[in-house]
């Protein structure tokens, strides 16, 4: 069994016999030979309710003394479950291997927000740590009663409570409660999702006592992956299941007006599901569903092409009406007045395209409806929200919907997974059979919610001595929440859009997260309406480090521009203005590791076509801070950029697992390079034309950075903050700054494809 097993995946017998997972209630003991699953135990009232204020909602001790941890978040590939198990084992004083983390199953965990905002450890781990500390306290109290010793004279080793003075006086967790549930109330803050916090009376350990937290423990779920023993969501099979495929319009916004079902009549089990603008097919076999999708004759409504010429995208953003404006972050002084007194004003604009999640495979979901009971298997990042969405969509009570998160084909935010679950539920309800729906490649890349395109305008006012006296930064962009970041409302899914439910596009963006202290400073954002309100392949939502790469590409490129304009070394300039001591220490650590040569950019010592340079960018993110130094090679004749080497300094407070952290950062850097150098969703007036890996290229293995060096700054005395996304944030600016250092040319539009770079250099 791996650290991340999903209980509902296991057969009941395996669960009860093989792993000793019989769990019955403290309050209502059942006879030992009454073998119950967790679901059955709950149905009989033998388990306290699955609510946030119950300790049993997070931690249980199985009959064999091993620990089951029920986690309302899930791992998107960074090995989160390992870190969570470390935090739990630490607090409970059990071996790391004794802990199994069950993730993202709505039947066994409460809504801790799912995979969201790099909060897996920051918030999810915080709760599991508090619950584990409380579980240990309760167990020691139980042992004190059993051993007739005061609790303060007891210690715990490897799940055995014993007298400090006499280790032979002992009782194990298994003997105390194994196979039965805790019935202990926690102090719940009445919040659901990321903000949920429900500690008990116990205080977690001091960091100086940590033995398991901080260790580089490896993932146990790698082996099942490389031996092809692990089920992904695409592998789930349910008896009687048929296969579904969706059909999307050739012109965005068009709806079917005539569908010729006879065009697919030769295909086994082929059926059309057509409801308003929703059009899908099912067939007995997967290949049949694909053939039906391809063969179905559909006449679409005539609609005006909804999109501007792609070349005019950034002009469109600049001219579009502002739907919402917000000034955020720390504001100082009077920016407009200060600019009036400036001796010199530096101004620059930056542009970032729509980007696709483009996961390895398009989304897949399985939905089974049995009367008023619903089962769903999904690669969603937020199974508890999908549960809410499906209950409303299908008109059944929330508790009747069981959503199991199963690994999907990669996930970096609000991708197409939640759309797929809702589409699949429409199909399953319509045909009265369980349906497995997987999108096709062109639908995955072409129709997923996109990372928003944006324009960023930065201005700095300098006095006669070149000091920055005013700084103004504005992003104008499509919203990060045009569709919301979870599937709890049908209106935020493509199914809701095509079915015609009333819509509500949200507004949100962000401002640079840094600690530059300028006397007069303003940071703001403005959002514009979507290009197409309903069923748009360019609807926008969260893509890894939502809006962080865009904003910091602009703000950290601009800091370099100001440094260059005032003939200062880019790091020396930053250190002069940064106020946060951890930011300063971070950048100094990165510079030292990289062996940074202090001088202004650009280099002036290179001739010829092949030139190289280095650039730094840094950012904060919800308590974490990251500095990235890129070394790049530029081929002036081809425009090709090679992001050769990176040095990353990373401070996320307490480090739970340094090896896991490095892997997490490594992926973020490489994906960040891909997004910076290659990624841009292309479209014409009718539709998105980036529909596969040829039309939406990503980084190739031949372009892999040669080396990534890490400086992991550990602050064990501080709470851990997130690492899932922050390190992708400064990558684009670090590369842009390195290109400027190499060439003296500033590139202000992503992606830095050879075509764009060559144009910029000419």
């Amino acid at each position: 069994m791996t650290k991340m097993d999903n209980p509902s995946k296991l057969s009941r017998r395996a669960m009860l016999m093989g792993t000793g997972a019989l769990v019955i209630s403290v309050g209502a003991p059942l006879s030992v030979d009454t073998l119950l699953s967790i679901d059955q135990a709950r149905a009989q009232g033998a388990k306290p309710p699955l609510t946030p204020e119950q300790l049993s909602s997070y931690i249980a001790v199985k009959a064999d003394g091993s620990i089951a941890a029920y986690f309302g978040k899930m791992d998107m590939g960074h090995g989160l479950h390992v870190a969570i198990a470390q935090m739990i084992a630490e607090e409970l004083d059990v071996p790391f291997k004794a802990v199994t983390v069950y993730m993202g199953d709505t039947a066994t965990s409460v809504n801790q927000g799912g995979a969201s905002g790099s909060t897996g450890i920051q918030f999810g781990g915080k709760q599991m740590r508090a619950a584990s500390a409380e579980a240990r306290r309760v167990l020691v109290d139980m042992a004190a009663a059993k051993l007739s010793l005061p609790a303060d004279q007891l210690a715990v080793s490897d799940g055995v409570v014993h007298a400090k003075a006499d280790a032979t006086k002992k009782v194990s967790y298994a003997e105390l409660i194994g196979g039965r549930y805790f019935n202990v109330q926690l102090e719940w803050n009445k919040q659901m999702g990321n903000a949920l916090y429900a500690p008990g009376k116990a205080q977690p350990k001091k960091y100086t006592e940590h033995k398991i937290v901080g260790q580089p423990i490896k993932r146990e779920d790698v082996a099942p992956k490389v031996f092809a023993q692990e089920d992904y969501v695409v592998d789930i099979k349910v008896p009687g299941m048929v296969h579904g495929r969706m059909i999307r319009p050739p012109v965005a916004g068009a709806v079917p007006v005539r569908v010729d079902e006879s065009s697919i009549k030769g295909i086994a089990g082929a059926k059309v599901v057509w409801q308003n603008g929703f059009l899908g097919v099912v067939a007995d076999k997967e290949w049949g569903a694909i053939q039906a999708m391809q063969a179905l004759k559909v006449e679409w409504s005539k609609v005006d092409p909804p999109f501007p010429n792609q070349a005019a995208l950034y002009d469109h953003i600049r001219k579009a009406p502002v739907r919402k404006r917000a000034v955020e972050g720390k504001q100082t002084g009077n920016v407009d007045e200060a600019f009036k007194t400036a001796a010199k004003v530096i101004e620059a604009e930056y542009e970032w395209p729509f980007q696709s999640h483009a996961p390895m495979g398009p989304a897949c979901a399985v939905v089974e409806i049995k009367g008023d009971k619903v089962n769903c298997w999904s690669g969603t990042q937020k199974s508890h929200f999908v549960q809410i969405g499906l209950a409303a969509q299908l008109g059944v009570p929330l508790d009747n919907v069981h959503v199991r998160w199963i690994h999907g084909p990669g996930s970096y935010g609000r991708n197409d997974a939640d759309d797929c679950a809702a589409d699949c539920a429409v199909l399953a309800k319509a045909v009265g059979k369980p349906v497995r729906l997987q999108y096709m490649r062109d639908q995955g890349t072409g129709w997923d919610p996109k990372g928003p395109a944006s324009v960023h305008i930065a201005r700095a006012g300098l006095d006669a001595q070149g000091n920055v006296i005013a700084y103004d930064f504005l992003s104008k962009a499509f919203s990060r929440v045009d569709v919301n970041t979870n599937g709890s409302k049908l209106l935020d899914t493509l199914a809701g859009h095509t079915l015609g439910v009333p819509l509500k596009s949200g507004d949100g963006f962000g401002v640079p997260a840094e600690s530059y202290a300028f006397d007069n400073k303003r940071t703001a954002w403005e959002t514009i309406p979507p290009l197409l309100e309903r069923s748009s392949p360019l609807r926008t939502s969260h893509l890894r480090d939502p809006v962080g790469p865009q904003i910091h590409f602009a703000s950290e490129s601009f800091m370099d521009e100001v440094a260059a304009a005032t003939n200062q070394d880019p790091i020396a300039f930053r250190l002069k203005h940064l106020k946060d001591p951890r930011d300063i220490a971070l950048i100094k650590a990165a510079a030292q590791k990289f062996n940074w040569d202090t001088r202004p950019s650009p280099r002036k010592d290179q001739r010829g076509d092949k030139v190289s340079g280095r650039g730094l960018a840094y950012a904060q993110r919800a308590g974490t801070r990251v500095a990235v130094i890129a070394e790049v090679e530029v081929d002036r004749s081809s425009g090709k950029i090679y992001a050769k080497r990176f040095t990353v300094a990373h401070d996320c407070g307490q480090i739970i697992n340094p090896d896991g952290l490095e892997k997490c950062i490594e992926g973020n850097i490489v994906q960040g390079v891909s997004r910076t150098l290659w990624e841009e969703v292309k479209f014409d007036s009718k539709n998105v034309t980036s529909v596969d890996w040829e039309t939406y290229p990503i980084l190739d293995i031949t372009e892999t950075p040669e080396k990534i060096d890490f400086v992991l700054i550990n602050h064990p005395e501080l709470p851990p903050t997130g690492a899932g996304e922050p390190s992708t944030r400064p990558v684009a600016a670090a590369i842009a700054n390195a290109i400027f250092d190499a060439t003296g040319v500033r590139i202000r539009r992503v992606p830095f494809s050879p075509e764009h770079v060559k144009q910029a250099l000419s």
Partner: protein
Amino acid sequence: MAETFTLNVNGQTHRVEADPDMPLLYALRDDLGMNNPRFGCGLAQCGACTVHMDGQPIRACITPLSSVGDAKIVTLAGLGTPDKPHPLQTAYIEEQVPQCGYCINGWIMTAASLLATKKKPSDDEIKSALSGIKCRCGTHVSILKAVKRAAAMMG
């Protein structure tokens, strides 16, 4: 019209009744119930469906069933087992390569074919052999480390 095909997969013989134009991928997944390889693009652009056909890596998503004949098909599950792992599988575990792991058929099966024919390939030879395969999580640095580690293990 459906025809009957005899497939040799991981050393076992299976009979499949299907449309001759159906890609091998669907026979493996849907008819034989195998959970590897996987659908990534259906266009031979990503590698997620890669299997060996007589030792050569092929993209099962575009390989019609009618073209398989009596070729020996090997999938990732047939490459090695926890008891008898292929060096690449061992190296993948040692280097802790995958994040989501959906892409690994492409990398491991293609690299296995390279290492079967080329002892101690250079970095450029490894990259060139693996060029075009996709990983979206950005594990490329670790993939290269693992292939080099496996090459060293294979002497």
